[in-house]
């Protein structure tokens, strides 16, 4: 039965759509707004770190009467910067945005397995985001005990932890619905001929990511319920007996433990960081294969590595808890699993590097960001190793070293990969080309500034400067020699912000009057380029459902099918 879609009213076509492409764009646009907001929070924090206690320009009056960021305000911004970037920015863009839009088309499907569920998961995310944002305007303010919400502080705090927890319930629900959809879609809706080992690597990373989200989030949901009960119903799930707050013992039944929160939180939060990186690796793999004009090196190893990585990510979580007194046996356990998990990461990164060898490299904007990802993720990963070693972690835990490490992985790591993806798939989504010159300026400026913001953090961390300090360490003797980096990092952050204008401008200008893009603008092999128009057809994607005849990266095929193109699309058989 052919589907004839009658003219849909505006609200059905663009607001409450079940089309994965519309939903993907909804996620992407919402996420980018949140990323910008989270970035601005960081700029204000960084201004204060460079010039503690001084009036913040432009937005000062919004922060306090005197115009500067208060210590409480700093804590509040710190907690929300982390929360917003991770849960409202990166994951919704990488998974909700890119995953939703690209995955079904790459596997030759007309949509996700459960389109209505897909719509529900976006709107659940939206509600969660609104709650998180709303907390800025409430009298008690936002959550302020870190994105990690450690008990007992998070329980006795009189700030916005409660609304944070309710917001998380909506975000977790959104994630769960989405991951069920992604897994079922990949398993069931691959088109004819698309066997598992012919899947684009991007699909594999989204598939493994979905499993991480599916199985790791529920314990955090349980923990959120416990913490809500502790805050609202006076329970003591995370409160021990005899806890002093100030000079008085807290009047609760006691018998709980803060460590239970930490275990349940990190059981999610560690797999969460792989949720942050895996889609990025998938995007980089696609862009690299396309712009080297050769197949990925070690595709099979990469697939096995990403599966192994996903599995291992569930048994390393307490390397975030080395300093909680777990005893040397358990510390050795987590240290060992953490060292083991670095192996698949290295395999994937190495395979991506080796994929460049002998390639005919095209240095367009998506490729520049993908290339930039490689050493940046390398630095991020390498700096994680001392943190995974329990003894070194004693010195580095809760210092700026940690902040440097994870930002390298997420910021010039994942976010660069996401930029690569935006520049790469923009022509497919809009049918228009982005401006290359603006893109290159965006890249060079961002690359330099990213390193400027985050590399001094290793220096400060090694000197022992603690994280989450309102004044960046000015009151500590051991921080004095490295304080000068604060101003340098802040200037780099401002520079980084300024260079994003090139990107934002490029988006709007290209949308308005960019050159028309062809349906296979990058001469790519994967189905979304080779078999669907730009943009793909509403609801069905393809004019004719493609069948697949070979692997996803048949590049450097010489004059196949009598043409002089150097690639064979996945939905055409290789001849001669």
């Amino acid at each position, binding site marked *: 039965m052919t589907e004839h879609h009658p003219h849909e009213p505006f609200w059905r076509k663009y607001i409450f759509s079940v089309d994965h492409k519309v939903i993907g764009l909804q996620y992407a646009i919402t996420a980018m707004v949140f990323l910008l907001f989270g970035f601005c929070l960081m700029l204000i924090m960084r201004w204060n770190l460079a010039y503690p206690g001084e009036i913040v320009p432009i937005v000062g009056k919004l922060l306090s009467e005197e115009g500067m960021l208060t210590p409480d305000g700093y804590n509040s911004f710190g907690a929300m910067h982390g929360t917003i970037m991770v849960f409202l920015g990166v994951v919704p863009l990488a998974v909700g945005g890119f995953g939703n839009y690209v995955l079904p088309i790459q596997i030759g499907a007309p949509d996700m397995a459960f389109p209505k569920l897909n719509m529900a998961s976006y709107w659940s995310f939206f509600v969660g985001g609104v709650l998180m944002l709303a907390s800025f305007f409430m009298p008690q303010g936002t959550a302020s005990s870190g994105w990690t919400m450690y008990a007992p502080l998070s329980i006795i705090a009189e700030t916005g932890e409660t609304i944070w927890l309710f917001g998380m319930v909506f975000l977790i629900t959104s994630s769960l619905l989405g991951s069920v959809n992604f897994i079922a879609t990949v398993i069931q809706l691959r088109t004819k001929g698309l066997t598992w080992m012919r899947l684009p690597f991007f699909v594999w990373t989204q598939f493994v990511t979905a499993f991480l989200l599916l199985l*790791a989030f529920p314990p955090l949901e349980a923990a959120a319920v416990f913490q809500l009960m502790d805050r609202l119903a006076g329970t003591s799930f995370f409160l021990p007996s005899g806890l002093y707050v100030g000079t008085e013992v807290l009047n609760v039944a006691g018998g709980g433990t803060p460590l239970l929160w930490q275990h349940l939180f990190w059981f999610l939060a560690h797999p969460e960081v792989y949720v942050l990186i895996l889609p990025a690796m998938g995007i980089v793999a696609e862009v690299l294969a396309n712009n080297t004009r050769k197949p990925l090196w070690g595709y099979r190893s990469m697939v096995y590595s990403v599966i192994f990585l996903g599995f291992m990510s569930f*048994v390393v979580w307490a390397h975030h808890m080395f300093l909680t007194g777990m005893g040397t*046996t358990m510390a050795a356990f987590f240290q060992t699993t953490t060292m083991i998990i670095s192996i698949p990461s290295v395999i994937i990164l190495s395979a991506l590097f080796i994929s460049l060898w002998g390639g005919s490299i095209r240095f367009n904007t998506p490729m520049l960001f993908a290339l930039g990802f490689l050493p940046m993720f390398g630095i991020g990963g390498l700096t994680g190793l001392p943190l995974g070693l329990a003894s070194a972690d004693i010195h580095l835990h809760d210092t700026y070293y940690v902040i440097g490490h994870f930002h390298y992985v997420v910021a010039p790591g994942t976010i660069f990969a996401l930029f690569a993806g935006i520049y790469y798939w923009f022509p497919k989504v809009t049918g228009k080309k982005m401006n290359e010159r603006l893109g290159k300026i965006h890249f060079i400026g961002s690359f330099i500034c990213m390193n400027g913001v985050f590399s001094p953090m290793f220096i400060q961390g090694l000197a022992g400067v603690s994280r989450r300090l309102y004044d960046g360490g000015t009151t500590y003797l051991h921080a004095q020699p490295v304080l000068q980096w604060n101003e340098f990092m802040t200037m780099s952050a401002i520079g980084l912000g300024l260079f994003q204008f090139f990107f934002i401008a490029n988006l709007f200008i290209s949308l308005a009057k960019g050159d028309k893009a062809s349906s296979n603008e990058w001469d790519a092999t994967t189905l979304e380029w080779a078999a669907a128009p730009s943009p793909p057809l509403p609801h069905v994607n393809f004019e004719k459902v493609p069948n697949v005849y070979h692997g996803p990266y048949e590049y450097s095929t010489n004059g196949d099918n009598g043409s002089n193109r150097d690639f064979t699309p996945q939905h055409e058989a290789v001849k001669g």
Partner: protein
Amino acid sequence: MDATQDIKKEISGYMKIFGALAVLTIVTVAVSLLKVGIGLAVFIAMVIATVKGSLVASFFMHLAHEKKLIYLFLLITLVFLMSLFFITFGTIGDQVGVKIVSESISSGVH
């Protein structure tokens, strides 16, 4: 009709399983009245609950005749659940029974 006959056989199977579940429920309660140590009590209770749960899963949920893929999902889930519990217990289990609050403080509480 063949299909109806098969379904009728299934239904009589459901009734048998129901009978087993009812009996096992009684057994659960009866066994709990025995005076055994907490370790043994937990073991017995969990074994019986697992048998009951398996009956519901295998026959009412048709898991016994399900496809391999579903078994794979459940196996993976079980592995992660076990690691959540046992590894966590490993890190804080040695604190079990240790009195955190000293007498002098606790005597002043509520």
